[in-house]
């Protein structure tokens, strides 16, 4: 029983969420609402894809929330100044630059990832405010720009944000499971010393996981900027914890060495469903925070209980 929950707990929770919300409100189980959920999940989910690599590699990235703010402000602000194409390019350049600073400090200088990215979180907030001068930014002509494609349009009835999220998820799942790079990330997270003795270059690998999380954060900024066509300076505040919640809910170990993109996707979808379902049921929006916390605790508990074979620890 416990073993079963350890392996499939996340899928069970997913089904449970669907069933409970479907029974309690008619609006929940419809294609439209499902697409809404995926759409809502797409921003946090896209970031979580990259962060999953960081966590499997044995590190944390808490800077993604404020990096999202920075990237969104940047791409929206530059849109009118240099045109959408160049704006997107520049946004990715600066986002990856910040990712590479994280990667250099953590991979090459071997600094603690919690400290580096926590510091980066506030550093980027500062940079964002300096850049924008504290003012909100927006795009003046919101109807006649192809930039709207990423957040507002749909292909074959599926919103583009959902497509970006799912396609990126499939690609990264394949990278994680089928390529030498993915295998090496598991190895450095599982046992850094043994990986070193096996000739893996840990510094380079850790570096690239931070580039990856910066890249997926950039993609999320694209979706967010395009959907809102404007941005506040603190739009991504608190996202780092929601992202981490999704990753943990998906069963990726914070100690590194195990995890899966597919399960991260399910984890993020559960969080979005809870949010969506509670709103449909008429609860105030802040109930989701409490419920999310309870769900995470139960998920982590079941995970640990499955590993030790008992619900409670005897000593």
């Amino acid at each position, binding site marked *: 029983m416990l*073993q079963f929950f350890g392996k499939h707990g996340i899928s069970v929770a997913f089904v449970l969420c669907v069933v409970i919300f479907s029974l309690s409100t008619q609006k929940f189980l419809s294609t439209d609402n499902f697409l809404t959920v995926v759409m809502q999940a797409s921003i946090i989910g896209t970031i979580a894809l990259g962060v999953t690599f960081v966590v499997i590699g044995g590190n944390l990235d808490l800077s993604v929330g404020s990096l999202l703010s920075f990237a969104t402000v940047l791409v929206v602000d530059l849109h009118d100044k240099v045109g959408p194409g160049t704006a997107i390019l520049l946004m990715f350049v600066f986002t990856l630059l910040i990712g590479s600073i994280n990667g250099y400090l953590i991979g090459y200088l071997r600094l603690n990832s919690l400290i580096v990215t926590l510091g980066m979180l506030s550093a980027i907030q500062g940079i964002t405010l300096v850049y924008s001068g504290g003012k909100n930014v927006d795009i003046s002509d919101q109807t006649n720009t192809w930039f709207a494609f990423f957040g507002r349009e749909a292909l074959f009835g599926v919103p583009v944000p959902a497509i970006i999220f799912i396609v990126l998820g499939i690609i990264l799942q394949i990278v994680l499971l*089928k*390529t*030498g*790079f993915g*295998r*090496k990330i*598991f*190895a450095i997270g*599982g*046992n850094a*010393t*043994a*990986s*070193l*003795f*096996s*000739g*893996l*270059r840990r510094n380079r690998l850790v570096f690239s996981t931070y580039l990856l999380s910066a890249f997926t954060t950039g993609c999320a900024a694209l979706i967010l900027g395009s959907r809102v066509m404007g941005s506040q300076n603190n739009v991504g505040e608190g996202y780092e914890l929601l992202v981490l919640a999704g990753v943990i809910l998906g069963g990726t170990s914070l100690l590194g*060495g*195990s995890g899966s993109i597919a399960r991260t996707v399910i984890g993020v979808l559960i969080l979005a469903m809870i949010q969506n379902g509670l709103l449909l049921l008429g609860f105030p929006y802040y109930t989701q925070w409490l419920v999310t916390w309870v769900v995470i605790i139960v998920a982590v508990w079941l995970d640990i209980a499955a590993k030790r074979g008992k619900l409670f620890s*005897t*000593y």
Partner: protein
Amino acid sequence: MNTQTEMKESINSQPEEKPLLKLKNVSKSFPGVKALDGVELDVRAGEVHALLGENGAGKSTLMKILAGIYQPDGGEVFLEDQLVHMSSPLEAREHGVLLIHQELSLVPDMTVAENVFLGNIPRFANMFVNNRHLNERCGEILTRLNCKFKPTEKLGNLSIANQQMVEIARALVFQPKVVVFDEPTASLTDYEKVVLFGVIRELKESGTAIVYISHRMDEIFELSDRISVLRDGTYQGTFYTRQTNEDEVTQRMIGRDLDADIEHQPPELGAKALEVSGLGIDGLYSDISFDVHAGEVVGFYGLVGAGRTEIMETIFGLRKPDSGSVQINGQNLAINSPSDAIDHGLGLVPESRKEQGLVLGMSCKDNTTLANISEFTKLGWIDTSAERKVFEEYMDKLRIKCPGWEYSTLNLSGGNQQKVVIGKWLSTSPKILILDEPTRGIDVGSKSEIHHLIRELAKTGLAVIVVSSEMPEVLTVSDRIIAMYDGRITRCFDRSEVTEDTLIRAITGQTGH
């Protein structure tokens, strides 16, 4: 009639015959493995009872049941004729059963005294720690153990051997009835071993029952009163040490004859594969020069801390030398990282297979191909079936006992884990293979297999270096033996000229000039 039975009982219950600890028909299963199947054991007060078995025979499982870490699926445990259930180490401790772990479980940043009383700190008014009292009580126990270090010493500053003494001291605090030693000598030098044995004998004299687990036959015969043997999770019988011999228990333990002794022909020497000259790292070792030819096995023998491991790590690119050079196949090379070393045909089976050798959470197959994963990838894509083929090849060749390629190395026995590490390096087709303590903590069966393997590898033209702290091992596998003492090479022996006596002199600094 009545008196007769009473008499019988009184004979049976003579103090030295009465078991203090008794296990009846104990079984334990894990998913896919029956670790213990109807195991019996009785341990008497005041005896050293050795538990013998190959890795994977179920010794560790049995010990964990005694220590309350695992609960048996079937069978009963009696302590002083009382049926007991020990559902946690805490409960086992309350019953007076204490396990001295193979891997030390101490806190390096705390003092000796704090470690000794960890979890049982005598407190004033249930809140405040009285350090002086703590240190005094700890000092008493240390004196009993003949330890020379102070209770106030920071644990991390002690040698491994002394840390082991702290571990024993910690057990003594609870005035145990049964103390279980799990491979206590694995990382001890010969001198430290003698001290430890003294302590164990003293415990025995004072009426404590000792369960002693070891792979080392000589130790078991030196120390124990009785020997119980396990094989594949089943009980193979108990013997009085004085009435049995190594052959008999070995036979019981492995259920087959050990392969005949390794024959030694003078090796067919190939070209010089590795030449090290004047290598040194300040404070670790200095002026190390030697060479290894293709087709020969060079043994590095010395005490723990003589600098052998550090030299190998330097050759393998894990440390930067302050002086000297390393030539491979006659070429002067700068090896700055393990991946450079691997590119130049070097392989290193490291000292500690769990920390340095394996990613324990990964499968056997994934571990096997980890060091040369790029050879299994095309455009970044891993060819899983090629990986499987290679793992299965080595599974056959090295006789790795494992349910399948996807099986996690975490659940393998020590011997099989080590074989996976060796397989990993053989799959990189190295020219030079370094094995650092290749059989530490491994049962005799696997040990002998690994020794044969080393000889065979040399025959196929590999240059092999074996670092070992065990003299029989060095004598068995090496063509030449390099003795080290305190960071220097003291002597280099040909196999034909070496004697145990000269070797001991060389590694203890008495070169006898």
